[in-house]
């Protein structure tokens, strides 16, 4: 009797098993949607955001551009209007609203270049950086202070006063040279450089010849 009952139940065994697995598979649907959780862990993201490692100073960037360093890519996250007005040389314009479009991804998500994001200050470029960092894009940097700091340091450097340390003067001369590279012309610079060259030969050469002349003429 027992055997017969057992055999009856067991005749459904595969159906029962299949039912159990279907129920389990149904459970997968109830799992939270993972596309929302895309990206690195929030704790790690906070750690990255706290670190100032992402910043590159305007002097460093100027140095790179002048040395024609081929390893970086400049991305302007401002709108097109500001971009057409003024932007850093050879930069690519990706307005913030187009940041996550497919075309932009080929620029932002690659290993070949260091990507340097910038906006007028570093507020919006930081936001772009955070979103991209969450998506695990690599080699992303942010220009510290953005175009505004770029302007006040590299394009229009402030001359240090006499009581400032020598390093400030060195920095100033670098920045001044950099600004000339980026098209700024200095009236005092063009003046100050040539005169020492011109004056010296003028005075020395004529004086020597004049003295020789009378001697030879006397013979």
């Amino acid at each position, binding site marked *: 009797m027992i055997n017969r009952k057992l055999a009856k139940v067991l005749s459904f065994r595969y159906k029962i098993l299949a039912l159990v697995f279907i129920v*389990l598979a149904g459970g997968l649907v109830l799992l939270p949607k993972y596309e929302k*959780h895309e990206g690195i862990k929030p704790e790690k993201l906070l750690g990255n955001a706290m670190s100032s490692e992402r910043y590159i100073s305007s002097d460093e960037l100027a140095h790179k551009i002048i040395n024609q360093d081929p390893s970086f890519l400049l991305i302007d996250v401002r709108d097109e209007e500001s971009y057409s007005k003024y932007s850093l040389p050879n930069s690519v314009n990706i307005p913030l609203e187009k940041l996550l479009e497919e075309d932009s991804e080929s620029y932002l998500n690659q290993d070949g270049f260091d990507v340097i994001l910038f906006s007028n200050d570093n507020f919006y470029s930081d936001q772009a950086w955070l979103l991209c960092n969450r998506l695990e894009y690599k080699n992303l940097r942010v220009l510290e202070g953005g175009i505004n700091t770029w302007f006040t340091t590299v394009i229009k450097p402030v001359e240090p006063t006499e009581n400032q340390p020598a390093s400030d003067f060195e920095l100033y001369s670098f920045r001044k040279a950099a600004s000339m590279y980026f098209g700024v012309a200095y009236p005092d610079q063009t003046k100050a450089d*040539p005169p020492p060259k011109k004056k010296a030969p003028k005075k020395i050469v004529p004086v020597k010849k004049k003295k020789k002349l009378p001697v030879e003429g006397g013979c």
Partner: protein
Amino acid sequence: MKELEKTKRISIAAVLFILVVIIALLAYEKPKHLYKINTEVALNKLLTKDYFVNFTDINNPEYVLIDIRNRYEYEKGHIENAINIHTPDLLNNTNSKVFKELIKDKKIAVLYGSDPAEANMPFMLLYQLGYSNIKILLVNNSYAQNKLITKSSIIGNSVADVTAYIKESQKNAAIKPKPKKKVPKKIVPVKKKKKMPVEGGC
């Protein structure tokens, strides 16, 4: 009997399998923090730019000010009624509770730091974690003689027209480079002229 033995093995395997699944479910620890919105939604929020609070509007009873600078600076001076939550502690259990309670009370957390950019990162993170009641206070905080001075600030604007500045500098300098060309011309003729008379004198 053979048939029975087979089914025994299958059912044992099935039971074991289900047990493993159940143990895995029990052992699964839910991560403390999960993003509630994806990057596209977050970006759309950023583009609306309605997450800024001006310094003049802070007396709104809905707003709860949160100072994200460190404890030392907070104690040195802070805006009245502000709570201190230093950025690295943002995801602590206690602080998460604070934010959750603010949502319950239908209050809006207004973050501020030494400048708006400092509050930017905590804001973005909290927003992506699903705290939709977060805003940024547009202020710069500095100290003068140990007193906190709060000034409202603007972000994202351009301080100067760089192109105009470069053009202007070139214009200013354009008049002066000319002397450069004149001077070298002078040197060359002077030498030649002086040599000629010498030979003639002999």
